[in-house]
C-alpha cells in the first residue's frame, strides 16, 4: 500500500464503509471519555492524517501482545486502522527477514527521523546483553538507537511498561521497562498481559487526532482506559457488597456467579478497561468467565503474593514470622523475668529494717 495515502483513503480502498468508519470514531471518542461532538473531529483528523510510520520492537516478550492486537481483531475496523498505519518494522509480522528486515528499520528511521512512533513490547535485559539480541544487536542498543528518532514511544504490554514477567522475582536477566531506560521521550504505557486491542488503537487514534499524547496517570497509562478499577466497574460487584463469595471454582457460589474475591481476585487494585470494553469484540472478560482478575495491568503483578490468594492476605509468610516471634519472645520474657526475680530477691535481702534508733539519729 502506498505510504502517501491518508487513513481515510486507505480505509476506503479496503472497503470500509463511511458508516463503519464513523462508528469507530464515535466509539473511540466515548472510550476516551470525550464529548460525542468530538467524533466528527476525530473522523476529520483521521481522514486527513498521513499514515504515520510505526516501528515495532519486540524484546523479551511472548508475542502475546501482537497476537492480541493483530490476529484476534484483524477482521474489525480497529484492525484495519492498525493496518493503515505504516508498520515499517515488526519482526514477527513483516515479510522481510535477516538483513533486509534490519534495512527496513534503518530506512524507516532515516526517512521519518523525529516523527515516527516507536511501539515496544517486551522488557529489556540490562544484565548480559547476550540474553536477548536481534540480528546481533542487543535489545538495549536497539532501543536506544530507535528511541532517539521517535516522536513518541508506546510501551505495549506489561513487560515493556513495567518489566512484566521477565522482571518477576528474582529477575534473572535484569529486565527493565522502557521508561526505566528512556527518559527524554514521551512514553505511553499500555499495560496488560496482553492489553486490550482497542486500547492501543484508541491511543494511536488519540495521537493522530490531537497530535499529543493522551492524559496519563501516575503509572504512565492513558486515564481514559485505565482510570477506573476492575472492581468499581465489575458486574459482580453487588455480590461483593452483599458479602456473597464463591469459595471454590465449582461450588454453588461459583455457579451463581458470586464475587471471586476469596479466590484471589485482584480487581480492587487493578486499573484497566476489561470490565467495560471487554474482550473478543465485547464478548466477556476473565471475571465473566469465572476466573479472578490477575491484576495483569499493574506493575509486579507476578509477585503480588499469588494469583489465588485473596487480596487481604499477606504477601509474606506471617505464620513463620509469628512462630519465630513467639520463640524469641518466650526466651526474652523468661530471661527478663528471671532477672526481675533475682533483683526482687536481692532487694529483699538487702532490705534493712528501720529501727526507732535509726529514726532518732537524724535529729
Amino acid at each position, binding site marked *: 500500500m502506498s505510504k502517501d495515502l491518508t487513513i481515510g483513503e486507505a480505509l476506503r480502498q479496503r472497503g470500509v464503509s463511511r458508516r463503519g468508519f464513523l462508528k469507530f470514531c464515535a466509539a473511540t471518542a466515548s472510550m476516551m471519555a470525550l464529548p460525542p461532538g468530538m467524533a466528527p473531529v476525530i473522523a476529520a483528523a483521521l481522514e486527513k492524517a498521513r499514515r504515520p510510520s510505526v516501528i515495532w520492537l519486540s524484546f523479551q516478550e511472548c508475542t502475546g501482545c501482537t497476537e492480541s492486537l493483530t490476529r484476534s481483531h484483524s477482521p474489525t475496523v480497529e484492525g484495519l486502522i492498525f493496518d493503515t498505519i505504516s508498520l515499517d518494522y515488526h519482526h514477527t509480522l513483516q515479510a522481510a527477514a535477516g538483513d533486509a528486515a534490519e534495512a527496513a528499520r534503518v530506512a524507516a528511521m532515516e526517512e521519518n527521523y523525529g516523527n515516527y512512533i516507536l511501539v515496544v513490547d517486551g522488557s529489556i535485559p540490562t544484565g548480559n546483553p547476550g540474553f536477548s539480541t536481534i540480528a546481533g544487536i542487543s535489545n538495549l542498543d536497539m532501543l536506544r538507537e530507535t528511541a532517539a528518532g521517535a516522536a513518541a514511544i508506546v510501551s505495549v504490554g506489561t513487560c515493556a511498561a*513495567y518489566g512484566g514477567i521477565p522482571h518477576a522475582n528474582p529477575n534473572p536477566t535484569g529486565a527493565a521497562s522502557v521508561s526505566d531506560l528512556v527518559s527524554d521521550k514521551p512514553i505511553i504505557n499500555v499495560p496488560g498481559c496482553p492489553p486490550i486491542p482497542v486500547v492501543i488503537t484508541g491511543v494511536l487514534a488519540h495521537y493522530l487526532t490531537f497530535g499529543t499524547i493522551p492524559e496519563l496517570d*501516575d*503509572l504512565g497509562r492513558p486515564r481514559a482506559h485505565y482510570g477506573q*478499577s476492575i*472492581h*468499581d466497574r465489575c458486574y459482580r460487584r453487588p455480590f*461483593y*457488597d*452483599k*458479602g456473597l*463469595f464463591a469459595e471454590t471454582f465449582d461450588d454453588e457460589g461459583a455457579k451463581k456467579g458470586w464475587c471471586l*474475591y*476469596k479466590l484471589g481476585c485482584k480487581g*480492587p*487494585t487493578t486499573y484497566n478497561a476489561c470490565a467495560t470494553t471487554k474482550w473478543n469484540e465485547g464478548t466477556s472478560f476473565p471475571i465473566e468467565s469465572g476466573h479472578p482478575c490477575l491484576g495483569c495491568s*499493574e*506493575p*509486579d*503483578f507476578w*509477585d*503480588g*503474593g499469588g494469583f489465588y*490468594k*485473596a*487480596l*487481604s*492476605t*499477606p*504477601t*509474606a*509468610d*506471617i*505464620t513463620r*514470622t*509469628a512462630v*519465630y*516471634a*513467639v520463640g*524469641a*519472645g*518466650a526466651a*526474652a*520474657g*523468661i530471661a*527478663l*523475668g*528471671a532477672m*526481675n*526475680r533475682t533483683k*526482687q530477691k536481692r532487694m529483699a535481702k538487702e532490705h534493712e529494717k528501720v529501727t526507732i534508733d535509726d529514726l532518732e539519729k537524724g535529729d
Partner: protein
Amino acid sequence: MSEIELFNWIRGPALQIATLIFVVGVVVRILEVLVLGRKQDLSEARGSGVAGGLRTIISRMFPDRGTLQRSTFNVIAGYVFHVGFLVTLLFYTPHILLFRDSLGVSWPALPTPVIDATAVVTLIALIAVLVHRIQHKVMRFLSGFQDYLVWLVTFLPLLTGYFAFHRVVLDPQAMIAVHILSVELFMVVFPFTKLMHTFTLFMARYYNGHIAGRRGVKT
C-alpha cells in the same frame, strides 16, 4: 517505589516487622508478669482460688449496678466501641481470610452491611468517649499523652478501613495500603502501651478472683 510496590511491601515485609514487634512484645510482657509470680500465701485456704479466679474472669465482663449508675456513659460507650471493634475485626470477610492465611483457622463472616453499620457505630462511640474524656474535668486531668495515642491508633484502623471499604478519599489501593499501615501502627504501639490490657485484664482478674476465692469471699 511504585504504588503497587509500596502496597506489596506494606502487605509483606512491613506486616512481618509489625507482627514480630507485636508478638515478641506481648509474649515478653505477659511472661514478665507470670515469671515474677506472687508471694506465697501461707494461710489456710477457705475456698478454691482457682474457681474464684476463673469465675471472676467471666463475672467482671458485666458491669455491676453501682458502676453502671455512677458512670452510665462510660460503661455503655465503652462496651459499644469494644464490641464493635472486635466485630469489625473478627467478622469481616477479608479479615477472616487474613486469619485463615496466617493462623490456619477460619469462621463464618457476618454480612458486609452489618459490618458497615457496626463500623459506623464504633466510630461514633470512639469519638464520643474522646469528647467525654476532654470535657470531663477529672478525666482530662487523669489523661496523659499515652491515653490520646492509644485512642488514635485504635481509631485510625477503623476510619481508614471504613474509607477503604467505601472506596473514598484516596484511590482504593492507596486507601487499603493506608489501612493496613494503620493496623501495623496499632500492632507496633500495642505492647508498649495500655493496649496490653487486651491480655493482662484476664491475668489481673484471675489474680483478684484467686485471692478472694481463697479467702472464701464472693466476687
